[in-house]
């Protein structure tokens, strides 16, 4: 349980990080909070030649409100995001999700960008970001590009980020000022703070007449990547929503998921619990939107 030898660079700029990653040719890796990389190093599942520390790069930390979006820089601690008034009031779904991430000891070090980079299929921040139509900014040697969450997750712990790119920030679009929006996040896990077995994130937006104008439902832990349930969302949009409507829309959820069996739960359990959690998340979101 001791890491293999590596070289360590405390980076002073994003350019320096990109340069090291580019020259490293897949053998250099970024460390931020270290809450997932440190175990991988200790267990020698990762044996990089170079570890690049981005903790001291000031422009990679902080939360900005920029026009119609909130930008969370990659190295922002999960605890800081959870405590942020902007996140609590304007990105409530993210706040609800982070409350399930690990424990205070890990949230004090773990970063928002780290969760998105690690991309465990059952982790909460990626799931909320997917439901909220967020996008990430990735910088590589050839420049900066933008990748939507819908195109970002490729498989378990696999993302669209190339080995020579660093995640700079995640961008959450803000709804218009008069939107009646509600959110819901529910999960089952074996112990408090564990990765979810299955998790559901939901967002419901109602117009002045109570018609659902936008609905988002994302399920994590029931497939190789977190997934949006487009058919359920379509079934809810354009009409008034109540529990019956949600239950009937959730009939579409089974076909959209391909869960696996593992030591934590069977595929059948994951399917069943995904539908239950989705209903709870959507009902919570609906109730919040109705009272907004």
């Amino acid at each position, binding site marked *: 349980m001791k890491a293999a030898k590596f070289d360590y660079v405390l980076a002073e700029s994003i350019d320096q990080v990109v340069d090291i990653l580019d020259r490293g040719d897949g053998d250099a890796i970024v460390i931020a909070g270290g*809450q997932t990389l440190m175990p991988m190093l200790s267990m020698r599942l990762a044996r990089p030649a170079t570890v690049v520390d981005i903790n001291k790069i000031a422009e990679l930390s902080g939360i900005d409100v920029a026009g119609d979006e909130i930008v969370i820089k990659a190295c922002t601690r999960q605890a800081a995001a959870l405590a942020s008034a902007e996140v609590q009031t304007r990105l409530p779904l993210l706040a609800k999700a982070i409350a399930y991430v690990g424990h205070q000891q890990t949230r004090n070090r773990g970063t928002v960008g780290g969760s998105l980079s690690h991309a465990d299929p059952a982790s909460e921040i990626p799931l909320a970001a997917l439901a909220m139509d967020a996008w990430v900014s990735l910088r590589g040697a050839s420049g900066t590009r933008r990748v939507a969450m819908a195109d970002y997750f490729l498989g378990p712990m696999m993302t669209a980020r190339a080995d020579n790119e660093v995640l700079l920030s995640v961008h959450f679009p803000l709804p218009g000022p008069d939107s009646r929006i509600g959110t819901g996040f529910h999960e089952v896990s074996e112990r408090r703070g564990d990765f979810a077995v299955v998790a559901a994130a939901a967002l419901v937006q109602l117009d002045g007449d109570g018609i659902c104008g936008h609905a988002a439902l994302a399920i994590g832990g029931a497939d190789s990547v977190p997934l949006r349930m487009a058919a359920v969302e379509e079934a809810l949009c354009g009409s008034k929503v109540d529990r019956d409507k949600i239950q009937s829309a959730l009939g579409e959820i089974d076909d959209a998921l391909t869960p696996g069996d593992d030591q934590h739960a069977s595929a059948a359990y994951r399917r069943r619990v995904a539908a239950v959690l989705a209903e709870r998340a959507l009902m919570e979101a609906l109730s919040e939107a109705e009272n907004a």
Partner: protein
Amino acid sequence: MHKREISLTVNGKVHELAVEPRLSLSDMLRDELRLSGTHIGCEHGVCGACSILLDGVPVRSCLMLAVQADGHEITTVEGLSNEDRSPGILQEAFQDAHGMQCGYCTPGMLISAQALLTANADPSLEEIKDAIGGNLCRCTGYTQIIESIQLAASRLREAG
């Protein structure tokens, strides 16, 4: 992979030393600084036994590199005792309320409890459970650990 010079404050004392990049903070505290109060359980961030305060907030020392502690202030369980090294109020409460069985998880429990009581003088049962949620006790002695923290909270409030 040459060693790096680092300087950090541990329990109020400045230490300057050279460490290999791959050395974890928990190993540095125990093996280099000989502060063996910080226990290493799982070495991959699950058990919480190695918890320390980093600039006043609890973190797992097995999930940090020693080089990353450069310039930071750390409190280990040794730093919770009084200046004459007698047990502090929190430690005494663990003793009086039997908040330990085998004692392996205790340093991490104490650190988490210290962080809680510094921020919140009168925590509810739920807040205490949340604060130690990241600390595993394989003896499953949680009830007495919670009672110890409640006892410490009331003694600290009385002491003002």
